[in-house]
């Protein structure tokens, strides 16, 4: 119960205020002057409060969202890693398959028995151009046997043990191969060079050898079967004494990419290279 006229006046004022607001409200809420006034007062506060709430809510939701996204991200990344691993394994197998298919074709083409071997190491110090293969005397691999890949000649077996052999590469100065220029049929002796590539020596002065000409084995050294691709002529110069031509040869094989090779199991006495035989088509 109101205790004084003042208290009753305040109560009435509020009731009147309520009535004014009630009767001044139009058809659309918020159109009345009182409502606008109320909004004007409340809006900044409401905005601030809502803003804070929104931010907190946002942070909260983001946190939960992030936890979910992070989880999802992690699982997706794991899946990507797994797929990448699978892809690289498949690519590796595909490349290996392609290489082995080429080797198999080459093996079928060879008139001589041959055996596939895997490269397991390279020269220990790098001063020599050699590599190691996983076939040795127990597989029938002996020293002096030619080593090839589908692209051409790789080198020659120079040392071997029961399960492993050392192959001296075509680019080693210690290896010489009897060769022939495919177009002109000129002969020469090819040896490696400490610089990149090989050098074809003792080409007759009258030869029409030109850069780009293909060089193949002549079979005259008794080690390499004739007709195996060796490389292409890069440049031609006159030899030191001026009696022969010399040519720089780019090998057909990229030696840093070799992973499997084919060892030609030729007779130790060499291949049949009777005079004139190497000229037969």
């Amino acid at each position, binding site marked *: 119960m109101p205790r004084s006229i003042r208290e009753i006046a305040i109560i009435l004022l509020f009731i009147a205020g309520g009535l004014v607001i009630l009767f001044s409200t139009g058809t659309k809420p918020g159109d009345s002057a009182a409502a606008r006034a109320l909004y004007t007062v409340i809006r900044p506060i409401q905005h601030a409060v809502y803003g804070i709430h929104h931010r907190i809510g946002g942070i909260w939701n983001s946190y939960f969202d992030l936890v979910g996204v992070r989880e999802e991200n992690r699982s997706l990344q794991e899946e990507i890693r797994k797929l990448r691993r699978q892809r690289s394994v498949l690519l590796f197998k595909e490349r290996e398959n392609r290489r082995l298919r080429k080797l198999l074709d080459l093996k079928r083409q060879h008139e001589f028995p041959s055996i596939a071997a895997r490269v397991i190491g390279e020269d220990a110090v790098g*001063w020599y151009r050699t590599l190691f293969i996983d076939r040795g005397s127990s597989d029938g691999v002996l020293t002096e046997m030619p080593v090839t890949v589908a692209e051409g000649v790789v080198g020659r077996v120079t040392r071997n043990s029961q399960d492993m052999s050392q192959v001296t590469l075509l680019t080693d100065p210690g290896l010489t191969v009897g060769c022939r220029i495919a177009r002109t049929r000129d002969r020469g002796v090819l040896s490696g*060079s400490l610089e990149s590539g090989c050098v074809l020596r003792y080409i007759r002065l009258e030869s029409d050898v030109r850069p780009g000409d293909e060089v193949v084995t002549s079979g005259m050294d008794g080690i390499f079967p004739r007709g195996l691709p060796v490389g292409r002529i890069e440049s031609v110069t006159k030899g030191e004494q001026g009696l022969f031509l010399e040519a720089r040869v780019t090998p057909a094989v990229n030696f840093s990419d070799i992973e499997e090779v084919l060892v030609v199991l030729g007779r130790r006495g060499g291949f049949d290279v009777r005079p004139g035989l190497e000229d037969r088509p």
Partner: protein
Amino acid sequence: MRVFTFIVLGCLVVVIVQVASIGFVVPAAYKPDIMLILVVWAGIRLEAVPGIVLAFFGGIVVDIFSGSPTGLFALVYCLTFVASGSANSTFDIDTPVGRALVVFVAALLTGVFVVLTRWFAGPLGAGTYAVPAALAKSLITGLTSLAVFPLLDRSWAGYEKLVGER
């Protein structure tokens, strides 16, 4: 006896690294000669007998796993061991730079030795290429020694701790 076990293990690990793995990082023609670093390390750290045993057998192992005539690296490494031991007793070379310099010079001399023996055997077809190639390879070996020497010191210390007195 225990030092010899370390030598055998050291040679095996180094040759495996040289033959099978370092080629993935550095092109074959420029790969560092880690066995040479091991020999120089022995010249500075080990006594004469185990050191020369390491140099000789390390050289033989390298001869087997490279195209060199057998005995070439055994000889070169023995000379390197003696030279590095002498250099260590005469000058203060036991600093990272000093050791790298000794390894660089040793690698360069090894290169000269190899090129000379190859030159005697037949035409090299290298022209002036041999000089920058030898210099680059020696420099790479010298720089590699900066990392390999502390590794060898640590391995040696760990091994001594593990097996006790020599």
